[in-house]
Protein backbone atom coordinates (compact mmCIF):
# COMPACT_ATOMS: atom_id res chain seq x y z
CA UNK A 1 0.00 0.00 0.00
CA UNK A 2 1.42 3.42 -0.92
CA UNK A 3 1.90 6.15 1.65
CA UNK A 4 -0.98 8.30 0.38
CA UNK A 5 -3.39 5.39 0.45
CA UNK A 6 -2.24 4.41 3.94
CA UNK A 7 -2.86 7.95 5.18
CA UNK A 8 -6.30 7.98 3.54
CA UNK A 9 -7.32 4.60 4.95
CA UNK A 10 -6.23 5.60 8.43
CA UNK A 11 -8.10 8.87 8.21
CA UNK A 12 -11.29 7.14 7.13
CA UNK A 13 -11.20 4.97 10.24
CA UNK A 14 -11.49 8.05 12.42
CA UNK A 15 -13.63 10.35 10.25
CA UNK A 16 -17.26 9.27 9.77
CA UNK A 17 -18.03 12.22 7.49
CA UNK A 18 -15.33 11.29 5.00
CA UNK A 19 -16.31 7.63 5.22
CA UNK A 20 -19.91 8.59 4.47
CA UNK A 21 -18.81 10.66 1.48
CA UNK A 22 -16.78 7.75 0.14
CA UNK A 23 -19.71 5.39 0.60
CA UNK A 24 -21.99 7.74 -1.32
CA UNK A 25 -19.51 7.91 -4.19
CA UNK A 26 -19.34 4.13 -4.32
CA UNK A 27 -23.09 3.75 -4.16
CA UNK A 28 -23.68 6.35 -6.86
CA UNK A 29 -21.18 4.60 -9.11
CA UNK A 30 -22.79 1.23 -8.47
CA UNK A 31 -26.26 2.63 -9.23
CA UNK A 32 -25.09 4.06 -12.54
CA UNK A 33 -23.34 0.78 -13.31
CA UNK A 34 -26.62 -1.14 -12.89
CA UNK A 35 -28.56 1.30 -15.00
CA UNK A 36 -26.05 1.23 -17.85
CA UNK A 37 -26.02 -2.56 -17.90
CA UNK A 38 -29.82 -2.72 -17.93
CA UNK A 39 -29.91 -0.24 -20.78
CA UNK A 40 -27.53 -2.05 -23.11
CA UNK A 41 -29.00 -2.64 -26.55
CA UNK A 42 -30.03 -6.20 -27.13
CA UNK A 43 -30.25 -7.18 -30.73
CA UNK A 44 -30.06 -10.45 -32.52
CA UNK A 45 -29.40 -8.85 -35.90
CA UNK A 46 -25.83 -9.27 -36.95
CA UNK A 47 -24.09 -6.44 -38.74
CA UNK A 48 -21.95 -8.87 -40.73
CA UNK A 49 -23.93 -8.56 -43.96
CA UNK A 50 -23.65 -4.78 -43.89
CA UNK A 51 -19.93 -4.97 -43.12
CA UNK A 52 -19.38 -7.50 -45.90
CA UNK A 53 -21.19 -5.33 -48.43
CA UNK A 54 -19.18 -2.27 -47.48
CA UNK A 55 -15.91 -4.16 -47.77
CA UNK A 56 -16.95 -5.49 -51.18
CA UNK A 57 -17.85 -1.97 -52.25
CA UNK A 58 -14.47 -0.65 -51.14
CA UNK A 59 -12.64 -3.40 -52.98
CA UNK A 60 -14.58 -2.69 -56.18
CA UNK A 61 -13.91 1.03 -55.86
CA UNK A 62 -10.22 0.32 -55.33
CA UNK A 63 -9.95 -1.94 -58.37
CA UNK A 64 -11.77 0.46 -60.67
CA UNK A 65 -9.90 3.53 -59.50
CA UNK A 66 -8.13 5.10 -62.49
CA UNK A 67 -4.39 5.25 -62.19
CA UNK A 68 -3.19 8.77 -61.65
CA UNK A 69 -2.41 10.47 -64.94
CA UNK A 70 1.31 10.86 -65.33
CA UNK A 71 2.15 14.46 -65.26
CA UNK A 72 4.85 15.54 -67.63
CA UNK A 73 8.04 15.57 -65.68
CA UNK A 74 9.68 18.36 -67.53
CA UNK A 75 8.91 20.69 -64.68
CA UNK A 76 11.41 18.83 -62.49
CA UNK A 77 14.43 19.85 -64.55
CA UNK A 78 13.34 23.39 -65.43
CA UNK A 79 14.63 24.96 -62.19
CA UNK A 80 17.93 23.10 -62.58
CA UNK A 81 18.25 24.32 -66.16
CA UNK A 82 17.55 27.88 -65.08
CA UNK A 83 20.23 27.62 -62.40
CA UNK A 84 22.81 26.27 -64.80
CA UNK A 85 21.98 28.93 -67.36
CA UNK A 86 22.36 31.66 -64.72
CA UNK A 87 25.78 30.37 -63.72
CA UNK A 88 26.85 30.22 -67.34
CA UNK A 89 25.74 33.81 -67.90
CA UNK A 90 27.66 34.94 -64.81
CA UNK A 91 30.74 33.20 -66.11
CA UNK A 92 30.42 34.91 -69.48
CA UNK A 93 29.94 38.28 -67.82
CA UNK A 94 33.02 37.67 -65.76
CA UNK A 95 35.01 36.87 -68.88
CA UNK A 96 33.96 40.07 -70.63
CA UNK A 97 34.45 42.34 -67.60
CA UNK A 98 38.03 41.33 -66.92
CA UNK A 99 39.84 41.38 -63.56
CA UNK A 100 38.37 43.40 -60.69
CA UNK A 101 40.59 46.27 -59.61
CA UNK A 102 40.36 48.33 -56.45
CA UNK A 103 41.92 51.85 -56.85
CA UNK A 104 42.51 52.26 -53.17
CA UNK A 105 44.71 49.24 -52.92
CA UNK A 106 48.28 49.51 -54.14
CA UNK A 107 51.09 47.04 -54.37
CA UNK A 108 48.79 44.17 -55.10
CA UNK A 109 50.74 40.99 -54.88
CA UNK A 110 50.03 38.44 -57.51
CA UNK A 111 51.12 35.39 -55.54
CA UNK A 112 48.72 33.00 -53.83
CA UNK A 113 49.98 33.84 -50.36
CA UNK A 114 47.51 36.06 -48.46
CA UNK A 115 48.95 39.41 -47.52
CA UNK A 116 47.78 41.97 -45.05
CA UNK A 117 47.86 45.40 -46.53
CA UNK A 118 46.92 48.67 -44.96
CA UNK A 119 44.77 50.93 -47.00
CA UNK A 120 44.73 54.68 -46.78
CA UNK A 121 42.08 54.78 -44.09
CA UNK A 122 43.78 54.33 -40.73
CA UNK A 123 42.46 51.61 -38.48
CA UNK A 124 41.24 49.48 -41.32
CA UNK A 125 43.16 46.42 -42.30
CA UNK A 126 42.75 44.66 -45.55
CA UNK A 127 43.70 41.13 -46.43
CA UNK A 128 43.98 40.36 -50.06
CA UNK A 129 43.82 36.85 -51.40
CA UNK A 130 44.83 36.25 -54.93
CA UNK A 131 43.53 33.03 -56.40
CA UNK A 132 44.59 30.91 -59.32
CA UNK A 133 42.08 32.67 -61.43
CA UNK A 134 43.59 36.09 -62.30
CA UNK A 135 40.12 37.52 -62.65
CA UNK A 136 39.04 36.65 -59.07
CA UNK A 137 40.40 38.42 -56.00
CA UNK A 138 39.06 37.99 -52.47
CA UNK A 139 39.27 41.07 -50.32
CA UNK A 140 38.59 40.91 -46.61
CA UNK A 141 38.24 44.10 -44.58
CA UNK A 142 38.38 44.19 -40.78
CA UNK A 143 39.02 46.82 -38.19
CA UNK A 144 41.99 46.69 -35.89
CA UNK A 145 41.24 46.91 -32.21
CA UNK A 146 42.36 50.18 -30.65
CA UNK A 147 44.99 49.57 -28.03
CA UNK A 148 44.72 52.00 -25.19
Amino acid at each position, binding site marked *: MGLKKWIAVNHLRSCPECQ*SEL*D*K*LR*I*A*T*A*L*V*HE*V*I*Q*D*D*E*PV*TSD*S*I*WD*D*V*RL*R*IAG*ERIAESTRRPKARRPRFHNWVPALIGITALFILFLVGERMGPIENQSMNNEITSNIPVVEHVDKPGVTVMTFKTDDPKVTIVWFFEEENES
Partner: protein
Amino acid sequence: MEFRALSNPELTNRDDATLIRHCRSGDMLAFEILVKRYEHRVMAVAYRIVGDRQDARDVAQEVFIRVYRYLNQFRNERKFFTWLYRIIVNASFDFLKKEQRFQAVPLDELSADLTPATEIDSADEKMFKQQLLLWLNTLSLSQKTAFTLHEIDGFKCKEIAEIMDIPNSTVRSHLRHARLRLKTLIEKHYPEYLEGRNRDLSSN
Protein backbone atom coordinates in the same frame (compact mmCIF):
# COMPACT_ATOMS: atom_id res chain seq x y z
CA MET B 1 -5.45 -7.33 -47.46
CA GLU B 2 -6.90 -9.86 -49.87
CA PHE B 3 -9.31 -12.52 -48.69
CA ARG B 4 -9.69 -16.04 -49.88
CA ALA B 5 -12.38 -18.38 -48.66
CA LEU B 6 -11.42 -21.16 -46.33
CA SER B 7 -13.94 -23.71 -45.19
CA ASN B 8 -12.60 -24.45 -41.74
CA PRO B 9 -15.35 -24.80 -39.11
CA GLU B 10 -12.74 -25.17 -36.36
CA LEU B 11 -12.00 -21.48 -36.69
CA THR B 12 -15.16 -20.67 -34.72
CA ASN B 13 -13.59 -21.78 -31.46
CA ARG B 14 -10.15 -20.39 -32.07
CA ASP B 15 -8.69 -17.54 -30.06
CA ASP B 16 -8.33 -13.99 -31.36
CA ALA B 17 -4.64 -14.38 -32.21
CA THR B 18 -5.37 -17.34 -34.48
CA LEU B 19 -8.27 -15.58 -36.16
CA ILE B 20 -6.14 -12.51 -36.78
CA ARG B 21 -3.41 -14.62 -38.36
CA HIS B 22 -5.98 -16.20 -40.66
CA CYS B 23 -7.45 -12.80 -41.49
CA ARG B 24 -4.04 -11.50 -42.45
CA SER B 25 -3.47 -14.44 -44.76
CA GLY B 26 -6.74 -13.65 -46.54
CA ASP B 27 -9.34 -15.79 -44.80
CA MET B 28 -12.73 -14.10 -44.99
CA LEU B 29 -14.39 -16.72 -42.83
CA ALA B 30 -11.97 -15.82 -40.02
CA PHE B 31 -12.90 -12.16 -40.36
CA GLU B 32 -16.59 -13.03 -40.27
CA ILE B 33 -16.09 -14.98 -37.05
CA LEU B 34 -14.17 -12.08 -35.56
CA VAL B 35 -16.96 -9.67 -36.42
CA LYS B 36 -19.68 -11.91 -35.02
CA ARG B 37 -17.67 -12.53 -31.88
CA TYR B 38 -17.39 -8.86 -31.02
CA GLU B 39 -20.25 -7.09 -32.75
CA HIS B 40 -22.59 -6.97 -29.75
CA ARG B 41 -19.93 -5.68 -27.43
CA VAL B 42 -18.83 -3.12 -30.01
CA MET B 43 -22.42 -1.94 -30.39
CA ALA B 44 -22.86 -1.74 -26.62
CA VAL B 45 -19.76 0.39 -26.16
CA ALA B 46 -20.66 2.60 -29.12
CA TYR B 47 -24.20 2.99 -27.75
CA ARG B 48 -22.89 4.24 -24.41
CA ILE B 49 -20.93 6.92 -26.22
CA VAL B 50 -23.28 7.99 -29.00
CA GLY B 51 -26.51 7.38 -27.10
CA ASP B 52 -28.66 6.01 -29.93
CA ARG B 53 -29.17 2.41 -31.00
CA GLN B 54 -29.22 2.96 -34.73
CA ASP B 55 -26.23 5.27 -34.56
CA ALA B 56 -24.42 2.67 -32.49
CA ARG B 57 -25.07 0.13 -35.22
CA ASP B 58 -23.64 2.48 -37.85
CA VAL B 59 -20.61 3.15 -35.69
CA ALA B 60 -20.11 -0.60 -35.15
CA GLN B 61 -20.03 -1.13 -38.92
CA GLU B 62 -17.46 1.61 -39.26
CA VAL B 63 -15.40 0.01 -36.50
CA PHE B 64 -15.13 -3.28 -38.36
CA ILE B 65 -14.36 -1.56 -41.64
CA ARG B 66 -11.45 0.14 -39.90
CA VAL B 67 -10.37 -3.19 -38.39
CA TYR B 68 -10.37 -4.64 -41.90
CA ARG B 69 -8.36 -1.74 -43.29
CA TYR B 70 -5.75 -1.59 -40.56
CA LEU B 71 -5.43 -5.18 -39.38
CA ASN B 72 -2.12 -5.56 -41.19
CA GLN B 73 -0.76 -2.66 -39.19
CA PHE B 74 -1.73 -4.25 -35.88
CA ARG B 75 1.37 -5.95 -34.55
CA ASN B 76 0.59 -7.35 -31.14
CA GLU B 77 -2.18 -9.92 -31.06
CA ARG B 78 -2.24 -9.96 -27.27
CA LYS B 79 -3.61 -6.45 -27.19
CA PHE B 80 -6.26 -6.87 -29.85
CA PHE B 81 -9.01 -6.14 -27.35
CA THR B 82 -7.47 -2.81 -26.35
CA TRP B 83 -6.81 -1.94 -29.99
CA LEU B 84 -10.42 -2.74 -30.84
CA TYR B 85 -11.70 -0.53 -28.05
CA ARG B 86 -9.50 2.27 -29.27
CA ILE B 87 -11.08 2.01 -32.69
CA ILE B 88 -14.56 2.00 -31.12
CA VAL B 89 -13.84 5.15 -29.12
CA ASN B 90 -12.28 6.95 -32.11
CA ALA B 91 -15.09 5.94 -34.47
CA SER B 92 -17.71 7.04 -31.93
CA PHE B 93 -16.01 10.38 -31.36
CA ASP B 94 -15.69 10.91 -35.13
CA PHE B 95 -19.39 10.15 -35.53
CA LEU B 96 -20.39 12.64 -32.84
CA LYS B 97 -18.05 15.26 -34.26
CA LYS B 98 -19.65 14.81 -37.65
CA GLU B 99 -23.09 15.11 -36.11
CA GLN B 100 -21.88 17.99 -33.91
CA ARG B 101 -23.16 16.37 -30.78
CA PHE B 102 -20.41 17.10 -28.26
CA GLN B 103 -21.80 19.02 -25.38
CA ALA B 104 -21.52 18.75 -21.65
CA VAL B 105 -24.09 20.61 -19.57
CA PRO B 106 -22.76 22.61 -16.63
CA LEU B 107 -23.95 21.22 -13.34
CA ASP B 108 -25.77 24.37 -12.22
CA GLU B 109 -27.69 24.63 -15.49
CA LEU B 110 -28.65 21.01 -15.29
CA SER B 111 -29.92 21.17 -11.72
CA ALA B 112 -32.06 24.20 -12.47
CA ASP B 113 -34.10 22.28 -15.04
CA LEU B 114 -34.91 19.30 -12.88
CA THR B 115 -38.17 18.88 -11.06
CA PRO B 116 -37.46 18.71 -7.33
CA ALA B 117 -37.64 15.17 -6.01
CA THR B 118 -40.45 15.98 -3.64
CA GLU B 119 -42.86 16.58 -6.52
CA ILE B 120 -42.44 13.19 -8.11
CA ASP B 121 -42.78 9.73 -6.78
CA SER B 122 -39.27 9.09 -5.60
CA ALA B 123 -39.99 5.38 -5.36
CA ASP B 124 -40.48 5.24 -9.11
CA GLU B 125 -37.40 3.27 -10.00
CA LYS B 126 -37.95 3.50 -13.72
CA MET B 127 -38.02 7.29 -13.56
CA PHE B 128 -34.87 7.23 -11.48
CA LYS B 129 -33.04 5.02 -13.96
CA GLN B 130 -34.07 7.19 -16.88
CA GLN B 131 -32.89 10.24 -15.01
CA LEU B 132 -29.56 8.60 -14.26
CA LEU B 133 -29.04 7.87 -17.95
CA LEU B 134 -29.83 11.48 -18.79
CA TRP B 135 -27.34 12.67 -16.22
CA LEU B 136 -24.74 10.30 -17.58
CA ASN B 137 -25.18 11.87 -21.00
CA THR B 138 -24.53 15.31 -19.59
CA LEU B 139 -20.98 14.39 -18.69
CA SER B 140 -18.31 15.49 -21.12
CA LEU B 141 -17.64 12.90 -23.78
CA SER B 142 -14.23 12.10 -22.35
CA GLN B 143 -15.54 11.79 -18.81
CA LYS B 144 -18.41 9.55 -19.87
CA THR B 145 -16.13 7.36 -21.99
CA ALA B 146 -13.51 6.99 -19.25
CA PHE B 147 -16.22 6.26 -16.68
CA THR B 148 -17.96 3.57 -18.72
CA LEU B 149 -14.71 1.95 -19.81
CA HIS B 150 -13.70 1.71 -16.17
CA GLU B 151 -16.98 0.83 -14.51
CA ILE B 152 -18.66 -1.29 -17.16
CA ASP B 153 -15.85 -2.78 -19.22
CA GLY B 154 -13.47 -3.13 -16.29
CA PHE B 155 -10.44 -1.48 -17.86
CA LYS B 156 -7.73 -0.13 -15.59
CA CYS B 157 -6.65 3.50 -15.80
CA LYS B 158 -3.51 2.61 -17.71
CA GLU B 159 -5.51 0.68 -20.32
CA ILE B 160 -8.04 3.49 -20.63
CA ALA B 161 -5.17 5.92 -21.16
CA GLU B 162 -3.96 3.75 -24.03
CA ILE B 163 -7.44 3.40 -25.53
CA MET B 164 -8.23 7.09 -25.34
CA ASP B 165 -4.66 8.18 -26.07
CA ILE B 166 -4.53 10.50 -23.06
CA PRO B 167 -2.28 10.61 -19.99
CA ASN B 168 -3.04 8.39 -17.01
CA SER B 169 -3.53 11.44 -14.83
CA THR B 170 -6.20 12.74 -17.20
CA VAL B 171 -8.05 9.44 -16.97
CA ARG B 172 -8.06 9.67 -13.17
CA SER B 173 -9.28 13.25 -13.39
CA HIS B 174 -12.14 12.23 -15.70
CA LEU B 175 -13.16 9.41 -13.35
CA ARG B 176 -13.04 11.69 -10.34
CA HIS B 177 -15.17 14.35 -12.00
CA ALA B 178 -17.68 11.85 -13.36
CA ARG B 179 -18.18 10.12 -10.00
CA LEU B 180 -18.45 13.38 -8.11
CA ARG B 181 -20.94 14.86 -10.54
CA LEU B 182 -23.19 11.82 -10.55
CA LYS B 183 -23.04 11.53 -6.77
CA THR B 184 -23.93 15.20 -6.36
CA LEU B 185 -26.93 14.88 -8.65
CA ILE B 186 -28.24 11.72 -7.02
CA GLU B 187 -27.71 13.17 -3.55
CA LYS B 188 -29.61 16.31 -4.47
CA HIS B 189 -32.56 14.76 -6.29
CA TYR B 190 -32.79 11.18 -5.09
CA PRO B 191 -31.07 11.11 -1.71
CA GLU B 192 -33.16 8.17 -0.55
CA TYR B 193 -31.38 5.94 -3.03
CA LEU B 194 -28.06 6.74 -1.47
CA GLU B 195 -29.38 6.42 2.04
CA GLY B 196 -31.15 3.17 1.34
CA ARG B 197 -28.04 1.57 -0.03
CA ASN B 198 -26.02 3.02 2.79
CA ARG B 199 -28.28 1.34 5.31
CA ASP B 200 -27.81 -1.96 3.48
CA LEU B 201 -24.05 -1.51 3.59
CA SER B 202 -24.10 -0.71 7.29
CA SER B 203 -26.27 -3.66 8.17
CA ASN B 204 -23.97 -5.96 6.26
